[in-house]
Every structure is written in structure tokens, then in C-alpha cells.
């Protein structure tokens, strides 16, 4: 049975469970809802959850554990292999190929168990069914593959039986327990709670995944490039052929500088826009302006980039930088910051608008009643009450600014520099991650691997910033009512 079919079957069982469970609850109460502990839907839900969730969990665990178990057993058939991992890849592929051969009707299962690697050209046969092998097949490997295949088949059958059994058992145990006194709501709610917890663990899993996928190559990088240089050097100057200076500070500086300018644009504009829309604007204006501003977040960044490059950059250069004697570069931190600021306006404006709108009217009334003007009310009552949400919105905007590449590339250039002059070209960590990773250099060279170290460092860096922000918000948090 294929996985999809098995999953569908379990789902059907669960849906059936819902309907039957609900009915059983109703009939057990003789149609009188009052006799039931919970609403009938909860009985249905309980049965459905008992049927589906353990079955799916088992399925997931089985799918995860089976290959590992089988591979350790098969590995015993392959004594003395040097690159066991590599050989196992071949084993897996051959087994897969054998399945395909059977599926396409070239050979029967029996013929396959009689097949021998030294007597037939396995590699070309595999090629026929579209399985590519790097080299010819050794007899031991072929035997291992055959046993891998049969173990796999057994495992698959075992899984099907076990999953269905668990589903049915779950169904039965929940279904039979249905009585008017059965606390179905509590049971199903605990189940839902477990699902909620699982959902929040996705975030943890993502973090773990990110750290893991960065950390190995980072370690690799530090083996071939001294960490001290990376963290302490003030020059960033990668060379194509090696011998680069890869100091992170110019990039961190650029990141901070660009993000700060972007926030300096987006926070006032976004916040004032949010306040205006939530507190002053007519319903109609708000209904139009808010989604319009949200479009700003959806315009592909390349459009902003080109806007920075073609319009904003030369304008800043001709009207500010050159007259002030601050340089002649058309790409500058200022250009990128300004344009990026526009892009992140909706992060501040829309989210803050929702939060401000949620502040209870009674607080506004209280303030107006004392003779406060609307702006005083906003500044002294509403904004403090909405502060945690607004800080969240600003952090989100800052995050977006830190992660942006296109606008920086086109607006601020690609030169890593440590300078205070906002009209100079600089660049950011993120830009360099992208460019070093997708470049033309060898993968195993420090010039490419540095991307991982940059990623990890940025991760830690933003983590610290976020902790600081959390502490600050906790301190100033105001709870209404």
C-alpha cells in the first residue's frame, strides 16, 4: 500500500469516527443534550483525533526509524567496506531499481532473488529503469541490496498493519468510552493543546535547523581561516584566487548603518501613518490607504533597487553629497536606507494600526474627558498602551531591513567600508552572504564558506538585539483594564 493511500485510509477512518462518535453520543443521551458532559461535536472530535493522531505519529516514527534500523542490519552484510555511507547509497539505489524493474514488469520477484551481480550487468539494467549508478556493482553490494529490499518490503507491510491497527484501536477505545459522562471536551482540548505545542515547536525546529545547517560549514571555514581575523580584522577584501581579508566588521557596520537609516525613515512615517489611519482618518480613507500602503511591502525588491539606483542615488549625489562635499558616489548607505525605509513602512504602519485600533475606546474617552487633545491622548495614553505590539512591529521591520539584499546591492553598492559618511557606498552582511554563496569561487574555499560564518554571526548578533528589545518591552509594558 502506498503511503498516500494509507494516509487517506486513516483520514477516512477519522472522519467516519467523527460522525459515528457524534451520533453515539447523541443516542447515548437519547437526544437530550443536557445529559451529555460535552457538546456532541466534541465526542466526534475525540474519536477522530484518537483515530488519526496516534496512527499518524506512529507512521512518522516508523518512517523515520525504519531506514536507520534496516541500514544497520544491512551494514552487517558489508564487512570491510571503506566508505560505508557511499556503498549504502548504492544499496539503496539498487533496491529502488529492483523495485522499478518489478514494477515495470521486466522481471518477477523470484527472478530477482535468483539474480546475481557477477552474472548479469546490473548497472546497465539499472540504467534502463532510470537509476544512475556511479560504478559497477560488487556481488556483496548486490546481495546487500536484495536483503535491503526485502527488509524494506517487510517493514512497509509491518507499518501498514501497525498503523491501521493503531487507528482502529484508537477508534474503538474512544468510541467505546463514549457515555454521557465521558469528558470529551477535555480530552479533545488536551489533544488540540498538544497540537498547538507542536506548532510552536516548528519555530524551535527551524532554529535548530538553521543553526545546524550553518554550523558545520562555519567550523569548516574557521579551520581554513583564522577566527581571530574574521572577528577582529577591519577589512573585508575577498580575492578571487585566495589570500583574502575577511573581517566582518565593515559588513556589520554597513548592516547597522543601512538598517538604522531605513528605520529612521520607516518608523516615523509608519507610526504617524498608523496613528493617522487609526485615530484621525475617516473609515473610507482608512479602508483605502491601509491596503495601499501594504502594497509597498509586496513590490518586489528589485523595483526598489532600480529606483534607488536610477532615481534616488543620482539625486542624492547631485543635490546633497556633492554640494556638501561628502563624495561623488551615486550609491550610498543613504540611498539604500531611504529606499528600504519606504519598503518597510507597512510593517510599522499596518501592524501598529491594528494594535492602536484595539486599544479600548474607554481609555480614549477618559483622556478626552480630561480635556486632552487627540494628539496628547495618542502620545500619552494610546501609544504606551499599545507599546508592546508597536515594538514588535518595529522589530519586524528592522528584521526585514537586515535581511534585505537587492536594495542594498543596487542602492548601496558592494564595497565593504568602515566609514561614517552616509553618502559613501557600503554593503551589508546579507548581501555578502548571497554574493559569496552564489559566486564563481570554489565551494570549499574560504571565500565561499565565509557566507556560513557570516550567517551564523548575524544570527547571534540579531539574537542579542532581540533579547535587549524583549527586556526593554517587559519593562515598559502597560496592561489595560
Amino acid at each position, binding site marked *: 500500500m502506498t503511503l498516500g493511500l494509507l494516509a487517506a485510509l486513516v483520514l477516512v477512518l477519522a472522519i467516519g469516527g467523527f460522525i459515528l462518535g457524534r451520533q453515539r453520543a447523541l443516542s447515548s443521551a437519547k437526544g437530550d443534550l443536557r445529559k451529555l458532559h460535552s457538546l456532541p461535536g466534541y465526542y466526534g472530535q475525540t474519536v477522530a483525533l484518537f483515530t488519526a493522531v496516534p496512527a499518524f505519529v506512529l507512521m512518522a516514527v516508523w518512517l523515520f526509524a525504519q531506514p536507520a534500523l534496516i541500514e544497520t542490519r544491512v551494514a552487517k552484510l558489508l564487512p570491510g567496506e571503506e566508505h560505508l555511507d*557511499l556503498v549504502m*547509497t*548504492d544499496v539503496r*539505489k539498487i533496491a529502488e531499481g529492483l523495485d522499478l524493474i518489478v514494477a515495470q514488469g521486466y522481471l518477477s520477484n523470484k527472478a530477482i532473488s535468483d539474480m546475481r551481480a557477477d552474472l548479469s550487468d546490473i548497472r*546497465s539494467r*539499472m*540504467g534502463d529503469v*532510470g*537509476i*544512475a*549508478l*556511479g*560504478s559497477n556493482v560488487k556481488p556483496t553490494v548486490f546481495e546487500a541490496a536484495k536483503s535491503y529490499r526485502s527488509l524494506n518490503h517487510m517493514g512497509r507491510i509491518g507499518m501498514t498493519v501497525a498503523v491501521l491497527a493503531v487507528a482502529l484501536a484508537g477508534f474503538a477505545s474512544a468510541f467505546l468510552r463514549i457515555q454521557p459522562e465521558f469528558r470529551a471536551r477535555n480530552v479533545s482540548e488536551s489533544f488540540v493543546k498538544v497540537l498547538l505545542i507542536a506548532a510552536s515547536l516548528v519555530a524551535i525546529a527551524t532554529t535548530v535547523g538553521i543553526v545546524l545547517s550553518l554550523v558545520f560549514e562555519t567550523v569548516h571555514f574557521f579551520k581554513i581561516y583564522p577566527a581571530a581575523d574574521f572577528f577582529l580584522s577591519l577589512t573585508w577584501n*575577498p*580575492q*578571487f*584566487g585566495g*589570500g*583574502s581579508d575577511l573581517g566582518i566588521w565593515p559588513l556589520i557596520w554597513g548592516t547597522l548603518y543601512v538598517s538604522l537609516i531605513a528605520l529612521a525613515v520607516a518608523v516615523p512615517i509608519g507610526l504617524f501613518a498608523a496613528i493617522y489611519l487609526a485615530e484621525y482618518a475617516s473609515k473610507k480613507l482608512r479602508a483605502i490607504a491601509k491596503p495601499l500602503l501594504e502594497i509597498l511591502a509586496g513590490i518586489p525588491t528589485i523595483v526598489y533597487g*532600480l529606483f534607488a*539606483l*536610477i532615481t534616488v*542615488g*543620482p539625486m542624492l549625489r547631485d543635490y546633497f553629497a556633492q554640494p556638501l562635499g561628502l*563624495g*561623488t*558616489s*551615486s*550609491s550610498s548607505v543613504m540611498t539604500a536606507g531611504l529606499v528600504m525605509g519606504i519598503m518597510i513602512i507597512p510593517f510599522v504602519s499596518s501592524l501598529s494600526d491594528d494594535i492602536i485600533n484595539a486599544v479600548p475606546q474607554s481609555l480614549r474617552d477618559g483622556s478626552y474627558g480630561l480635556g486632552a487633545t487627540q494628539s496628547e491622548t495618542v502620545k500619552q495614553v494610546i501609544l504606551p498602551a499599545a507599546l508592546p505590539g508597536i515594538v514588535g512591529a518595529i522589530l519586524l521591520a528592522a528584521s526585514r531591513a537586515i535581511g534585505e539584499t537587492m536594495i542594498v*546591492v*543596487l542602492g548601496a*553598492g*558592494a*564595497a565593504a*567600508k568602515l566609514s561614517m559618511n552616509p553618502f*559613501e*557606498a557600503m554593503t551589508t552582511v546579507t*548581501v555578502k552572504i548571497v*554574493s*559569496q*554563496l*552564489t*559566486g*564563481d*569561487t*570554489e*565551494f*570549499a*574555499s574560504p*571565500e*565561499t564558506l565565509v557566507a556560513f560564518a557570516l550567517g551564523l554571526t548575524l544570527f547571534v548578533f540579531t539574537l542579542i538585539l532581540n533579547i535587549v528589545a524583549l527586556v526593554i518591552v517587559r519593562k515598559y509594558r502597560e496592561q489595560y483594564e
Partner: protein
Amino acid sequence: RDQIQSAGSSTVLPYATIVAEAFGENFDFPTPVVEGGGSGAGRKKLCEGVGENTIDIANSSSRIKQSDIDTCAANGVEEIMEVRIGYDGIVFASKIDGPEFAFTPSDWYNALAAEVMVDGALVANPNKTWHDVNAELPEQDILAFIPGTKHGTREVFDIKVLEAGCEATGAMEAFVAAKGEKDGEKACLALRTDGVSVDIDGDYTETLSRLDANPNAIGVFGLSFYQNNTDKLRVATMSGVVPSTESIATGEYPVSRPLFFYVKKAHLGVIPGLQEYIDFFVSDEMAGPEGPLAAYGLVSDPELAATQEMVAAGTPMGPLN
């Protein structure tokens, strides 16, 4: 999977798409999927292993490195075919309405290097205009958009222009004398950091846009890009030679590099159409001097026939020399 997958150099990408498109139209196989991402990334993907989940072909604007070959070997990719499809010329161009330029590598070295020779001594680069660099060049501020260090093109620029210029002006000798062989050569590649030389991490369209924003700058482009934008760009000569497919094919124009793709031999005969595709790619119909690739700007390889033979025979590449 039933379609061919290739990835890598963005320089080779347009040629590969032209071939893939024609291949899809004229053969019964599905159109191959061609990905960009850069030569390094392409070769890395090629070397991830053998099997359906890995790509068949890596396009590359530079030769494969030993480290790549080692990674490949470690992942079970033992036989790789190296196919050179032609040459890419690198040209220097300015806005169409600006003055004419005739460069030599020394001019570029003296314009962009951090330290240059003045009166027999190494000093920090004092040159402000091209005229300062070479009295025959126009009185125009130096501003150059050169490929960023992630680009294969930069390597060519470094070697064929900067190093050549370094040597010709005698700076190389002074560097080597001061710092020793290795560091001396490296010093040739150090560029001034006062904003006169601007690295471009993006592609040639970005360089072109930057020329729009800075009308008196000089940009570095690929020949094919220039050929598609002759109405906007004025190309400069290098050592007196006008860049063109012909002058590059004959080797007269100095700044060019070969383009390659690398095929995972284990996939031949496994991935349907792979052999046909690579044959088609190097056929005269496609890669010959009259073919669409040349029309687009590829400098056709004078030794194409040998390549065709090698591809047909499926000869894997030997060790790097």
C-alpha cells in the same frame, strides 16, 4: 525525473537556454531545465553525488578546480566530462555619447591600482582623470565599474588586465622586490578604495544602469551583452584591437576566457536525452560560427570539431594540469 537538469554560470546561462529551447523544440525530449546561480554553485551541485536528485550538467565560466574534483570523488562522482563551448570576450565600454577610448592594460593598472609607479617609485595612486594616466586619453574623471570578486569575469580582469598592466608598468617588479614573489603578485591586484573603482556584484544590466546614473564612467561587460546594446554603449579598444567575435577567436584581443560545461558521465544513458543534448550543444548548428550562439555573442571555438568528437566518444576529463 525525465528532463535534463543543469545549473551554474550566469555567463553560460543564456547560451544554455538557447540550446535547451531549440533542443526541446526539435527533439522528443522535454526541454532541459537550466539554472543559474554562479559557476561555483553549479560545480558544487554537480559534485553532490550521483542520482536523480543531483544535476547532470554544471555550466562554468572558469575551469573546474581541484577541490571540486576532490569533492566530486568523495561523493562518488568519479567521471566528469569537460566540454569547452567557446570563448567569452570581455569588453570595456562607456556611454554611447561619450568620447572614444583606446586602452592598454597599463592604463587600467595606473587608473585603478592602489599603488603605482611614478618616476621609478611606488606611490599611492595620484591619478584623478584618464588624462593623468595617459596623455592620449580624454580629460575625464576616472570611474570604473568592474565585476565583483564573486564573478569569474573578475579573475580574467585581474589576470589579463591588472596583472599585465602591473608587469608592463614595472610595478610588479618593485612589488616582488619589496614583498617577495607571492605577496608581490597579490599586491598588483590591490585596488584603490576611494570610490573610483566600484565592484559590481550584480550582472551587466546593473553595470549598464550604473552607467546611466554616472554618464562618465567606464564599465566592464561581456561581449554578448555589448552586442545586444550597441546602441547604448561605445566600446573601447584594448591594445589597439577592437573586440569582436573574430578578433577574439584569432586571439588578437587579449581579454577573453573559455566557457565550459561539465557533464556527470554516470548520468549518460540514464537520464533520457542527455547524450543527445550535449551533442546538440556542441554541434556546428548551434555552437558553430554561423550558429545562434555565435549570433548572440559566443566566440566560437576554433577547435570545435575536436570537442564534438570528444563529446560523442564520452571521454572523461583527465587530471587537471
